[in-house]
C-alpha cells in the first residue's frame, strides 16, 4: 500500500527561501522527513500567490526524500478565510481526483493552511469525499535543537478503531439502553433488540418514528424516554408534547393540533397556538394516530413534509420543526385499506416502525418490571412495600402462566402492584393479598374476554350470568347461540350443530340434544330467538 499525502502549502509555516529555512520547522517538508513514514506521493495544493513557496517545498522534499514524488496543483479560492469558497474548491479537487483506494492509502495533512481550510479538509474526510485519514504534524518539543523535524500523528476518523474510545461508546450505549428501559433489566430478547434499534434511530435521526403495540405496552412511556435521551444529548431543544388522538374530536381536533386565530369560529375568542406549534424543536407524540380524522391527517402530512401548516381561520402559514413519534395499537395498513387512514401519511411515518410486544409476550420481563413498579410505588406513595418470598413466587407464577393475559399490559401490572402494595398489611405483600389480586385480575380479564366475544352470549344471558361461566362454556355457548340465530327451527339448528355425529347414528334426536344443552343454562329456543 502506497502512502499518498494531500495538503495545502502553508504560506507562513512552510515558507522560507534562504538556507536558513532548514533551521525552522516546516510542516509540509517535515512530513517527508519522518523515519517511519514513507510518502510515495505528495499532492501539494497552493494558492496562486504562493507558487514560489510551493516550488521551494517541492524541491526540498525531493532532497530529503527522493522516494517521494511531489505534485503541485494550484487551487482557486480567493479568500482562504471564506468557508464556502474554500470548501467548494477543495470539494472540486476531491471530486476530480482519481482516488485508487485499492493501492493507495491517503493521508490529508491538516497542519498547514487556514483554520477554515483545516475545517473543510476535516469535513471532506469525515464525509468520505476525501477518503483519507488525517495527518497532523507538530513542531519539535524544544526549540533550538538540531531536530527541526518534529512529530506526526495519524488520526483515523473511524473512531471504532480506537479501543479506549470504542469502550467509551460501548459504555454510553449501555447507559442509553438502560435509560430507554428506565433502568429495568429486561431479559426479553425481542424487546431488547427493539430497544437497541430505537437507541440507534433516536440518537441519530429526526425522522418520524412509529410505535406499534397493544394498549399499555409502554408506547407513551417509551416516547417520553426517547425525548429525554435526545434532550440529554442536546439533540432536541424544544419540549415533549403528547396527545392521545382519540380525545380529539370534530372542529376541536384541528384547533388543538394546529391552533386557531381569534374569531375563526364561535368561541374562538383569542389566538391559540396548537400543539404542533408548542412542539417546535421538540418531539410531538401523537398516540392512537389512527383516530385522527382525514382532514387532520392531510394537514399533519404537510406539517411533517414541509414543516408548515395553516392554523384554523388563518391565511398565514406557521412553521414548526418537530420530530414526530406516533403510537398506534391497531394495524394502520388495514385502516388504509378501509379508507380510514391516508396511505401517504402512513408511508411517511412508518420509516421506523417498532412493534412493542405486550407483557404476555415478555414473560421473562415480568419479574424486573415488578420490582420497578414497587420502586415506583415507593417513590409516589412513600411506602416501601415488599413481597414475602412465597407471595412473590405465587404472583410471578400466575403472571407468567396462561392465566396471565395482561390485557392492558403494564397498566395492569402497575394497577396490580398499586393495589397489592396499598392493601398489604404492614407493607408486606403476603399470599392472601396476592390471591385476592390474582382473582381480581382474572375476573377483569374475563369481563374483557366476554366483551370481546361480542357477544351474543351477554345479550342472551346478561353480563353477570355470562361471567359466571367457564371460558370453555363461554366459547361453546357463544357458537351455539350464533347457529340458532341463523337457523329456522330448533331441529334445523340441531342438524347443523351435530352434523358430523348424526352420520354415524341410526336414529338421531338432534333437537332434543340441543334442547337439553340449552336447558343447562336456563335457556330455550324462544329465549334465544325472541
Amino acid at each position: 500500500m502506497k502512502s499518498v499525502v494531500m495538503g495545502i502549502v502553508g504560506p507562513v509555516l512552510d515558507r522560507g527561501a534562504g538556507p536558513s529555512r532548514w533551521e525552522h520547522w516546516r510542516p509540509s517538508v517535515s512530513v517527508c522527513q519522518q523515519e517511519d513514514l514513507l510518502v510515495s506521493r505528495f499532492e501539494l495544493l497552493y494558492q496562486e500567490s504562493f507558487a514560489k513557496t510551493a516550488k521551494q517545498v517541492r524541491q526540498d522534499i525531493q532532497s530529503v526524500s527522493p522516494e517521494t514524488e511531489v505534485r503541485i496543483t494550484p487551487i482557486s479560492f480567493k479568500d482562504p478565510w471564506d468557508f464556502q469558497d474554500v470548501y467548494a474548491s477543495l470539494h472540486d479537487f476531491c471530486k476530480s481526483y482519481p482516488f485508487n483506494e485499492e493501492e493507495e492509502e491517503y493521508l490529508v495533512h491538516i497542519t498547514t493552511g487556514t483554520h477554515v481550510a483545516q475545517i473543510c479538509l476535516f469535513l471532506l474526510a469525515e464525509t468520505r469525499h476525501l477518503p483519507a485519514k488525517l495527518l497532523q504534524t507538530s513542531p519539535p518539543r524544544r526549540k533550538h535543537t538540531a531536530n527541526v523535524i518534529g512529530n506526526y500523528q495519524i488520526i483515523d476518523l473511524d473512531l471504532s478503531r480506537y479501543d479506549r474510545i470504542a469502550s467509551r461508546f460501548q459504555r454510553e450505549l449501555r447507559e442509553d439502553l438502560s435509560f430507554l428501559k428506565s433502568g429495568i433489566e429486561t431479559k426479553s430478547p425481542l424487546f431488547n433488540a427493539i430497544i437497541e434499534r430505537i437507541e440507534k434511530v433516536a440518537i441519530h435521526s429526526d425522522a418520524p418514528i412509529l410505535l406499534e403495540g397493544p394498549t399499555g405496552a409502554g408506547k407513551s412511556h417509551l416516547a417520553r424516554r426517547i425525548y429525554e435521551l435526545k434532550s440529554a444529548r442536546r439533540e432536541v431543544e424544544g419540549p415533549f408534547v403528547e396527545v392521545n388522538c382519540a380525545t380529539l374530536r370534530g372542529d376541536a381536533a384541528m384547533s388543538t393540533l394546529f391552533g386557531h386565530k381569534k374569531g375563526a369560529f364561535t368561541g374562538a375568542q383569542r389566538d391559540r397556538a396548537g400543539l404542533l406549534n408548542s412542539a417546535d424543536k421538540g418531539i410531538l407524540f401523537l398516540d392512537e394516530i389512527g383516530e385522527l380524522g382525514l382532514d387532520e391527517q392531510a394537514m399533519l402530512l404537510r406539517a411533517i413534509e414541509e414543516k408548515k401548516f395553516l392554523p384554523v381561520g388563518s391565511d398565514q402559514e406557521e412553521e414548526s420543526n418537530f420530530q414526530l413519534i406516533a403510537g398506534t395499537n391497531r394495524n394502520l395498513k388495514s385502516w388504509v385499506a378501509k379508507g380510514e387512514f391516508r396511505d401517504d401519511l402512513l408511508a411517511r411515518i412508518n420509516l421506523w416502525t417498532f412493534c412493542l410486544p405486550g407483557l404476555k409476550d415478555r414473560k421473562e420481563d415480568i419479574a424486573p418490571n415488578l420490582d420497578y413498579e414497587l420502586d415506583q410505588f415507593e417513590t409516589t406513595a412513600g411506602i416501601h412495600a415488599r413481597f414475602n418470598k412465597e407471595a412473590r413466587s405465587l404472583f410471578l407464577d400466575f403472571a407468567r402462566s396462561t392465566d396471565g393475559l395482561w390485557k392492558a399490559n403494564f397498566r395492569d401490572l402497575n394497577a396490580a402492584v398499586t393495589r397489592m402494595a396499598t392493601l398489604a398489611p404492614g407493607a408486606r405483600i403476603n399470599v392472601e393479598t396476592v390471591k385476592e389480586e390474582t382473582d381480581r385480575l382474572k375476573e377483569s380479564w374475563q369481563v374483557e374476554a366476554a366483551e370481546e366475544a361480542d357477544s351474543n352470549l351477554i345479550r342472551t344471558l346478561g353480563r353477570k350470568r355470562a361471567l359466571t361461566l367457564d371460558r370453555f362454556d363461554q366459547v361453546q355457548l357463544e357458537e351455539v347461540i350464533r347457529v340458532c340465530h341463523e337457523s329456522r327451527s330448533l331441529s334445523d339448528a340441531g342438524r347443523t350443530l351435530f352434523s358430523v355425529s348424526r352420520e354415524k347414528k341410526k336414529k338421531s334426536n338432534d333437537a332434543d340434544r340441543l334442547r337439553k344443552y340449552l336447558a343447562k343454562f336456563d335457556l330455550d329456543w324462544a329465549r334465544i330467538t325472541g
Partner: protein
Amino acid sequence: MLNLDGSMGEGGGQILRSALSLSLAKGIPFTVKNIRAGRRKPGLLRQHLTAVNAAVAIGMAEVEGAELGSETLTFCPTTVQGGDYSFAVGTAGSATLVLQTVLPALMTADVPSRLELSGGTHNPFAPPFDFLERAFLPLMTRLGATVTAHLERPGFYPAGGGMFRVEVNPVATLSPIELGERGEVIGKRVFAYVSNLSRQIGKREIKRVKRRLSEENTEYCVVETSGSMGPGNLVAIDVESECLTEVFIGFGVRGVSSESVADQAIDATRRYLASGAPVGEYLADQLLVPFALAGGGMFLTSKPSRHTLTNLEVVNLFTEVKARMKDRGKHVEISLG
C-alpha cells in the same frame, strides 16, 4: 538459511546492515527477527529500508518483509553484480550507511563498480564522508581492493542534497592486514567546513583547535562549500600516523557555539592520541566485517563500543573466521582467523 535475532547486542540497525554486508559477500541467505525490538518505533525505518533495497539491487536478491515497520526480514542473495549504481537516499538514511552496507561485497565482485550516492553525507548519526574518505577507504585499499571516493557536494542534516561518487576496483580475494600499532604521528590536518554559513564560524573553530591541540606539523583550512542546500558546519581532524590515518569529527548544531563544535573533535582526538591504540571507536565498528571477509587480521583499539561487540557476534555467525577479543591492558586486541 541463517537465523538471527535482531534484539541481540546493541539491538538496532547495525545488526541488519552487517548481516546484509556479510550475506551479500558470502552468498548466505538469512532471516532476522525482532528487528529493532523494544525501540520506540520498532521494525524497519526508512534508512534501513534504503540499505535493504540497495543490497537487493547489488545482490539480485529475493527479499521478504522489506516494508516500513517490518520486524522480520528474509534476504536471499543470488550473485553480486558489480557495475554502475546510483542510490538516492533521504536525509536520515545517510548515504554513507548505504555504502557501508554494499561496499564489502563489491570489493570482491567480478567487475569494477562506480557508485553515485546522493542524500546526506554529513549526518551526526552516521559515519561522515570525511571519515570514510580518509580513514576507512584507505584501509580497504590495503586489503587489496582500491576504493576511492569523491565528494561532489556535501549534504548536511537535515537538508541533505549532497552527492559523492565511489569507485571500486575489486580483487579476487582480500588479504588480511594487522593494525597492531599506530607508529609516530606524522601530521594533522584540520578542516572546518562551512556551508551557507558565515566563514567566521570556521575561523573560530580553527582558533579553538589551535589553542587546544599542538600545532606541530598541522595544516588548517576553512572550507566554504557551495552547492549544498542547507546550512552546515563541521570540524574534521585527521591524525596521520605511520600506520594509518584516523579522522575525528565535530558536528555543528544550531544553538551550539563554534567552540563547542570544535571541542567535540578536539576531545576525541586527544583521547585517541592519549590512548596510543591505532584504531578509534568508530573505525573499529567498521573494520570487523571487511576483516572477516579477508579471512583474518587483527587490530588494537581502546574500549570496544557496543556496536563493535554486536558486529563481532554477527561476524561469528556468518563466517568460519573466529573473531576474538583479548584484553591487552590499556587496549583491547581484536583478532580474526
